[in-house]
């Protein structure tokens, strides 16, 4: 179709002359200066190139016009082909082996000149897009494979398939419709990806692919064009020149497909990726390399290598997240395992994960329980990835030493161990493997000598292992072995148990008994003897309490007290509180102790007044309130019962305690509106809620209303309106700290709420003022014209 008329033809005489020269030089061994031959080749090549340029201009082929990339490149190849036609026409006209040499050299020179960086890039782009489109079509339309097959030389296909079979490769995609079916499976997610992509060029490309894939006729045409282009690449002898950009295109395809699998950890990706990439690479092998027998699996091998490298790179970089997502990410772990085994990259993976963990996990911002959770997930994931636990050993070492440096590690582990929904609890409940008391070395398991899947330890293991047994230990044992001794865990468990037993009110300890039994299985009965005594104390206390209840019924005594009587040497000592019990309360205690002493001769009771709780019914002039308080708090109220209004010093004297101690107990009642401060450090019981301090009542109309509301239905005023009243009462309780606030604002100028709150916390440790209370208190002060709120800052008037 392209008429060829050389503008400056090389005459046949010229060619003859060059050939003569080549012959002469070859025969005589004269050094090859090559000037005239090179000149001849050059002029031939220039001639070809001019011709090509002419054709390109005539066809208006824009070398790098992206939108026309399929067609444009094809046209370019066709133009190149018509030049090639004239070359072969002449070659056949001269018809002699020597002339062919010159012609070939000239052609190669042309290709060398034409295939500059831009054209190579163009070619890579063309091939990449074409392959992507092929893949897209195959995914959407399995029948594409039939087109592909028909586009390929059947002989070549058979030859390739034989070669693949010989190489023991898995079934290669093309010609295999079953594989096509498996490719179709996640068509939806594919198009979702396309929609989600915001890159305009990318989305245009996707639209183009979609258009092609939607119509079987279009697919046929496209495959035809693509196969034609590939054939031209072969005919024009470009393949070996451009092998780098060809494999570059394959690389890009692989990379793009691998990248699509990022963060898709819940589905198995590797097999699908492999099928796809194999399909494309095999197609390319069949289309491009059918004239050379040696490199028939060039692209296939290349693509697989690339795929495994890239995929494992991706998953290894994601491993931290995969571990977080475990067990949802099980599939990703299976994929990664395949890759890592193939790549033999265990060590790199371990070190990359270790770095990620050090950067992302082992810093002060992460809570200990987060670190533990991640460590536990890592143990489970890495056990799947590497049954020999070598990777785990490498990764765990920094985590373990970091956990050792945290103070609350032990308590976190113990908390986790005994909370019934946790995984550790399952380990504990499974009760297998007793932890001996010599740290990591001491976990004893029976080796399963009959295990058929036994594998020798990997080479890395030598430098890493402390003991071979460690790899079989379960998660709990691994956590316990963070520390040199298990005693810390037993002690922490004792603390935890004591706390729970002291908190439970009805002498019921079924759960705790179960926990202790399980701990015994794990840590050995000897270690938990203290806990046994504690449980026994609870049971004994229950019996004693029943006896006391019966005795007091006989004597017609009212006995609200129910005591937990502990064995002093076996319970961790509680903080002591120094104060005198009011007579009403002491009487009850003495009665109880008296009955106890009758029951258990030669024994005495010592009350631990810092513990326990007292439920009080407070009958005031206008309302009845039920409050549960600590014994010391109740003592304050009993003191105020005798003297309804008294100064702090007097109260402290009466309670035989320090003023601070008394004040913090008074605050408890201030906050509940039972007590109020009538003068500096003088307190009084609030007998009637809304009367009394007129200024406060007037400045708090809301409180007044709330109080009045709750007065009318005084039987059940515990919640609801009572809560609103309580909040105001708490604000009122803050009044005594107004000096602090005033000083703060004078020294620092206007301050926002949270600054005031944090500074109050600094001045008054132990005072748990909430932001809500402080806000209502400051609002109250603003209403009393002491403060003013402007732009979120409080300032003095």
């Amino acid at each position, binding site marked *: 179709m392209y008429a060829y008329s050389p503008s400056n033809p090389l005459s046949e005489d010229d060619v003859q002359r060059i050939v003569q020269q080549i012959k002469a030089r070859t025969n005589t061994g004269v050094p090859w200066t090559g000037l005239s031959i090179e000149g001849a080749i050059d002029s031939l090549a220039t001639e070809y190139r001019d011709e090509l340029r002419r054709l390109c201009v005539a066809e208006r082929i824009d070398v790098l016009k992206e939108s026309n990339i399929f067609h444009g490149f094809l046209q370019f190849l066709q133009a190149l082909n018509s030049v090639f036609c004239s070359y072969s026409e002449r070659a056949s006209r001269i018809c002699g082996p020597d002339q062919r040499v010159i012609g070939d050299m000239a052609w190669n020179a042309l290709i060398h000149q034409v295939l500059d960086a831009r054209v190579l890039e163009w070619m890579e782009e063309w091939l990449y897009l074409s392959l992507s489109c092929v893949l897209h079509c195959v995914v959407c339309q399995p029948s594409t494979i039939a087109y592909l097959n028909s586009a390929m030389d059947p002989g070549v296909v058979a030859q390739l398939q034989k070669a693949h079979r010989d190489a023991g490769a898995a079934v290669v995609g093309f010609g295999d419709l079953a594989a096509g079916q498996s490719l179709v499976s996640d068509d939806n997610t594919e198009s979702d990806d396309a929609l989600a992509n915001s890159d305009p060029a990318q989305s245009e490309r996707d639209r183009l692919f979609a258009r092609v894939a939607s119509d079987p006729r279009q697919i046929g045409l496209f495959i035809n064009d693509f196969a034609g282009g590939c054939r031209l690449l072969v005919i024009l002898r470009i393949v070996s020149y451009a092998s780098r950009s060809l494999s570059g295109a394959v690389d890009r395809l692989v990379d793009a497909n691998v990248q699509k699998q990022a963060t898709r950890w819940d589905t198995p990706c590797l097999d699908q990726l492999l099928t796809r990439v194999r399909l494309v690479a095999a197609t390319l092998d069949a289309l491009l390399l059918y004239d050379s027998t040696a490199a028939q699996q060039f692209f296939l091998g290349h693509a697989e290598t690339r795929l495994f490298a890239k995929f494992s790179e991706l998953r290894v970089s994601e491993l931290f997240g995969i571990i977080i997502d475990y067990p949802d990410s099980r599939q990703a772990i299976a994929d990664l395992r395949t890759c890592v085994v193939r790549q033999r990259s265990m060590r790199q993976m371990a070190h990359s994960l270790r770095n990620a963990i050090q950067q992302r996990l082992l810093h002060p911002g992460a809570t200990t329980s987060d670190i533990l959770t991640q460590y536990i997930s890592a143990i489970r994931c890495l056990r799947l990835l590497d049954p020999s636990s070598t990777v785990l050993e490498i990764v765990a070492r920094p985590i373990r030493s970091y956990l050792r440096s945290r103070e609350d590690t032990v308590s976190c582990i113990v908390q986790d161990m005994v909370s019934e929904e946790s995984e550790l609890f399952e380990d504990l409940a499974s009760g297998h493997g007793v932890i001996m008391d010599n740290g990591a070395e001491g976990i004893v398991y029976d080796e399963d000598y009959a295990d058929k899947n036994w594998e020798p330890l990997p080479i890395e293991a030598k430098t890493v292992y402390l003991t071979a047994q460690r790899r079989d230990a379960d998660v709990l044992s691994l956590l316990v072995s963070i520390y040199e001794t298990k005693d810390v865990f037993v002690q922490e468990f004792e603390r935890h148990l004591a706390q729970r037993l002291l908190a439970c009110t009805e002498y019921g300890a079924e759960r705790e008994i179960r926990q202790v039994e399980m701990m015994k299985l794990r840590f050995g009965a000897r270690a938990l003897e203290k806990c046994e005594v504690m449980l026994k104390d609870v049971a004994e206390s229950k019996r004693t309490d029943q006896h006391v209840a019966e005795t007091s019924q006989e004597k017609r005594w009212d006995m609200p007290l129910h005591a937990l009587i502990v064995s002093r040497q076996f319970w961790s000592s509680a903080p002591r509180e120094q104060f005198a019990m009011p007579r009403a309360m002491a009487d009850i205690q003495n009665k109880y102790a008296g009955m106890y002493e009758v029951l258990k001769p030669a024994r005495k009771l010592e009350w631990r007044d810092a513990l326990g*709780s007292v*439920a*009080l019914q407070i*009958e005031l002039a206008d309302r009845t309130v039920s409050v549960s308080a600590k014994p010391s708090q109740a003592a304050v109220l009993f003191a105020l019962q005798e003297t309804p209004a008294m100064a702090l010093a007097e109260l402290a004297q009466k309670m035989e305690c320090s003023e601070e101690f008394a004040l913090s107990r008074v605050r408890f009642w201030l906050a509940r509106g039972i007590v109020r401060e009538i003068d500096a450090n003088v307190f009084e019981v609030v007998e009637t809620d809304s009367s009394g301090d007129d200024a406060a009542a007037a400045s708090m109309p809301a409180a007044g209303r709330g109080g009045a509301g709750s007065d009318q239905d005084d039987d059940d005023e515990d919640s609801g309106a009572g809560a609103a009243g309580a909040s105001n009462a708490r604000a009122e309780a803050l009044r005594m700290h107004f000096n602090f606030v005033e000083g703060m604002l004078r020294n620092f100028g206007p301050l926002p709420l949270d600054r005031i709150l944090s500074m109050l916390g600094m001045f008054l440790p132990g005072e748990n003022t909430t932001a809500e209370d402080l806000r209502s208190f400051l609002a109250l002060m603003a209403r009393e014209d002491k403060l003013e709120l402007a732009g979120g800052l409080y300032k003095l008037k």
Partner: protein
Amino acid sequence: MKLTITDWRAVAGWKWDVPDDDVCGICRAPFDACCPGCKIPGDDCPLIWGECSHVFHMHCLLKWLGSETSQQQCPMDRRPWVTAS
């Protein structure tokens, strides 16, 4: 104001009626703990008072009295052991 205690959950520690922090003269363990052979203190491991006013874990003393060297004497003052009634 009228206060009524409706319910009081208290905690107490029991101790033997002996001077504080005293230990058994035989096993040197606190009286409130148990003798080396026992695990649970209290009823299961009681104390025994002699007329000589010395106190021991009962198990400790019985073991002592069972040994030949004891000659049925109080280990503290070597007077014949008589259990206080």
